[in-house]
């Protein structure tokens, strides 16, 4: 009943401010998905360091980017693997913390 009256008076569901708010939300998902260049470089260096413990990767052909879908952002990395490393982790005792890096 109230809904009906509201729809009649407010054209609820098509209220232009709802449209504005939704458009703002979407546009900001994209706007905010920018990372400062120096932060980005630091992130790549860290990624390479961690992954290289387990895999021999081709750093030069690695491609890391933020992809914005309709209303979400994802970190998408394509990292060519040359070889899976075996045996003890390089660096020996350098632990990554409990539960991490327990190689077979």
């Amino acid at each position, binding site marked *: *009943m109230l809904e009906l009256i509201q729809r009649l008076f*407010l054209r609820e569901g098509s*209220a232009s*401010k709802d449209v504005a708010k939704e458009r703002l939300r979407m546009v900001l998902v994209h*706007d905010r998905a920018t990372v*400062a260049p120096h932060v980005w470089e630091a992130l790549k260096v860290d990624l390479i360091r961690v992954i290289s413990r387990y895999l021999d990767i081709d750093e030069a052909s690695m491609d890391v980017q933020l992809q914005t879908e309709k209303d979400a952002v994802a970190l998408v990395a394509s990292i060519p693997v040359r070889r899976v490393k075996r045996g003890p982790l390089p660096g020996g005792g350098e632990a990554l913390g409990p539960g991490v890096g327990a190689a077979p």
Partner: protein
Amino acid sequence: MSEVIVITSGKGGVGKTTTSANLGAALASLGKSVVLIDADIGLRNLDVVMGLENRIVYHLVDVVEGYCRLNQALIKDKRFDNLCLLPAAQTKDKTAVTPDQMRQLCKELKAEFDFVLVDSPAGIEQGFKNAIAGADTAIIVATPEVSSVRDADRIIGLLEAESMPPPRLICNRIRPAMVRRGDMLGISDILDILAIELLGVVPDDESIVVSTNRGEPAALSQGSRAGVAFRNIARRVLGEDVPFMNLDETNGFLGRLKRMFGSTR
């Protein structure tokens, strides 16, 4: 404890200069000593909004370049002894000043005044960087439009990158009837999106146009609703807990109907 506050927005024409003039006048009327800096070099406006355009001799760039002393360039307000304006240069451009020079200027003024208010130009380039250089805190002005709120979000990010404390928001030009109809973003919508502290809500008000015509800040005229809003903002800046004008709430016929039915929407 003195404070340098920059008034900025990203988007142009949303009310930075109006806010600077009115907040300055309101703070002065509350007994604080205030200096307004027009940092919009090349597009000087604050002098006209304050009604001080005929008194300008020197300007900000003259001070920075050493053509005059700082005190010679400060223009005393007509109404308050404790309110001054440092006008922008009209014939130079933004590159005539550096962030370091602005920092130094703000430091000197901070030693003499309770409040230094910096009216920032639109945009995010050099003029903006100059305006925020010497500021302790920032006030962001936004109107209830997609483009303005989007730009405000960008500015919030840039201020954060400069390690400034979280800015506070003034929503300007709210039209309560349109908000009620659902045809304008309301305060709660804007706060949802920007997630920053609200400092004030200023209605869209003809008295702003009238007072700007006269060169007398609306904050000084008793009958103006926008003036009341700016006086409230000044008191909040001074740390007082002043309730917000209730513009967002559904009043009128539907509001009464909703309350009758006990709706929580």
